[in-house]
């Protein structure tokens, strides 16, 4: 019985960390499948976290218990609009996509902290009154073993993240829209010749990554930190980017990679409970996700094939 309790604890902790990564990585899949590198996922998460916290604090008196959902939606919309900056720079103005993404990261943190200072007159916001709480799924949590593992004490956003991963997989691989998105990332000129609007598809890809990245940051803020400061989002966006690549630009691969990274992060926290890992220095647990990603990229865990035109601005008429 003890082992089941342990597994469900590790699983629970993994999923808490993995959920924001899943959302953000799905956003990264959209953007990169359309051919636009998105190093700015970190900044999009920062924006999402900031907007979610601010709207949660501001609108709690209006929406009451529905506040978390409202905050998530506002965060998604604002982050999608914020991602437009990256889209305009890298698609229309042909800026280097990596550099533009780096600038997005700077800009989001700058705006978030500047407005926090401006509105709350200190380095971090107040703690929100209406976070997302973990809960048990009624009926299903009564199932022996499985109920303890999967339906007890999870946040509803985790189920949403997993469901969305499958939805995104369906959209990208089973719908005409997905085919167009992928074709624009693989061979924009061929797509253009076939009457697909390359610029429009790429804009949609980047804005979707903004919405999903914002959702990821918002979920992290509402489930884990409950306020916004310079330390709210530190590197989760880069890990999500790693999950995109580790998952070979595939939504379900990204889902798996994100859960794995969540698991690795939770290990460094719960490893003290596990006899086998008790004596492993925590530094190995901390660096494991990054080392594994490098190994994966180096081809030891199977070759990752990026979309062909990833990182190249499309210029009409150029060959």
């Amino acid at each position, binding site marked *: 019985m003890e082992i089941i309790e342990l597994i469900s604890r590790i699983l629970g902790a993994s999923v808490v960390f993995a959920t924001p990564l899943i959302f953000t990585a799905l956003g990264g899949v959209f953007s990169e499948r359309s051919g636009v590198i998105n190093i700015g996922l970190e900044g999009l998460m920062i924006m999402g976290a900031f907007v979610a916290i601010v709207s949660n604090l501001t609108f709690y008196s209006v929406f009451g218990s529905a506040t978390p959902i409202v905050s998530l939606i506002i965060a998604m919309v604002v982050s999608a609009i914020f991602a437009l*900056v990256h889209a305009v720079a890298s698609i229309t*103005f042909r800026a*280097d996509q*990596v550099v*533009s993404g780096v600038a997005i990261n700077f800009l989001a943190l700058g705006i978030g902290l500047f407005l926090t200072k401006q509105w709350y007159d200190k380095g971090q916001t107040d703690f929100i009154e209406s976070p997302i709480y973990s809960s048990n799924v009624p009926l299903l949590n009564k199932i022996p073993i499985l109920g303890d593992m999967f339906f007890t004490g999870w946040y509803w956003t985790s189920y949403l993240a997993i469901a969305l991963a499958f939805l995104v997989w369906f959209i990208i691989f089973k719908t005409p829209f997905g085919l167009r998105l992928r074709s624009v990332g693989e061979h924009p000129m061929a797509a253009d010749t076939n009457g697909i609007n390359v610029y429009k598809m790429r804009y949609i890809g980047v804005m979707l990554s903004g919405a999903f990245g914002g959702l990821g940051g918002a979920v992290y803020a509402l489930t884990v930190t409950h306020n916004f400061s310079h330390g709210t989002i530190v590197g989760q966006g*880069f890990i999500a980017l790693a999950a995109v*690549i580790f998952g070979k630009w595939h939504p379900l691969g990204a889902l798996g990679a994100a859960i794995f990274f969540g698991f690795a992060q939770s290990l460094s926290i719960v490893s003290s409970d596990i006899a086998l890992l008790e004596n492993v220095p925590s530094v190995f647990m901390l660096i494991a996700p990054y080392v594994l990603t*490098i190994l994966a990229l180096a*081809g030891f865990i199977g070759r990752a094939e990026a979309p062909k035109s990833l990182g190249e601005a499309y210029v009409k008429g150029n060959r």
Partner: protein
Amino acid sequence: MFSNRLFNILVPIISVLLGLISGAIIMLIFGYNPIAGFAALWNGAFGDAYFFGETIRQVTPYILSGLAVAFALRSGLLNIGVEGQVFMGWLASVWIGISFELPMILHLPLAILAAAIAGAFWGFIPGLLKAKLGVHEVIVTIMMNYIALYLSNSIVRNLLSDGADRTENVAATASLQSNWLAEMTFYSRIHYGFIVALLMALVMWFIINRTTTGFELRSVGFNQHASKYAGMNVSKNIILAMVISGAFAGLAGAMEGLGTFGFMSIKSGFTNIGFDGIAVALLGANTAFGVILAAFLFGILKIGALNMPTAAGVPTELVEIIIALIIFFVASSYMIRWVILRFKKEGK
């Protein structure tokens, strides 16, 4: 009419102006006086000798991290891993600084050299993976940043101290700090490192512009296939570019370890020296001289900003927004070129 050279000078200048104007507009929107704001920033950087000393102190690592990014970019590689290479250089310099007793003439160069080697090694790994396996250097260097962060934290805690949050101070024989300079600037943390930084800018200029190696590195940056056809070893040059870039970054770490702080402490996050180096290199158009100018600009902005809340009530973070916007404008130089050419056409 407009030569490429003129564009290369105009684009950064226009970008900086646009960035500062955007900052002024933001200040207006939030009800601050932009003139008072920028005056506070200026005084915060040059107001008295202490501020000036601090500005130079900030500029020193920026020059080196800017050189690191610029050097890699000249060979067509984006080294986002400068941050991690700074950590390794910092760690190595402090390690040597606290564990040996040597005369200064040996100790200081040894500590600085160790930093360069540690940074170079951290750049060698992504360079090797890129050259031999075609792995994208951006992702590998991002991952290497985190490995460096956690690894150096662990080493500081477990090897360089007895579970403490920081190491002891480096020996005086390995320190770049100078009482003379400090006294002159009302005890700011200015140190001799800026001489090292300027010297390294000269080294980069020399390697890139005056040696065969530099020619090959640039050539690989322009066109790998043509370089290969011309008989250059592309793999070797990619690795070499990352190694030299990493060495510059490691030296930036030594500036912090041997100069500014004199010790290494456990970090909860990145120092941003490396990430700001990307901005410095871009603004400096990847040339040694440009990097020095850009490093000064960002150093002035960062240190001057600290004076803005007290003198004009403007939050320090405004400068982060301005810097981000400057990067955007430089990156979108296509837009600036297009606008300039448009004006030219209409003027005719």
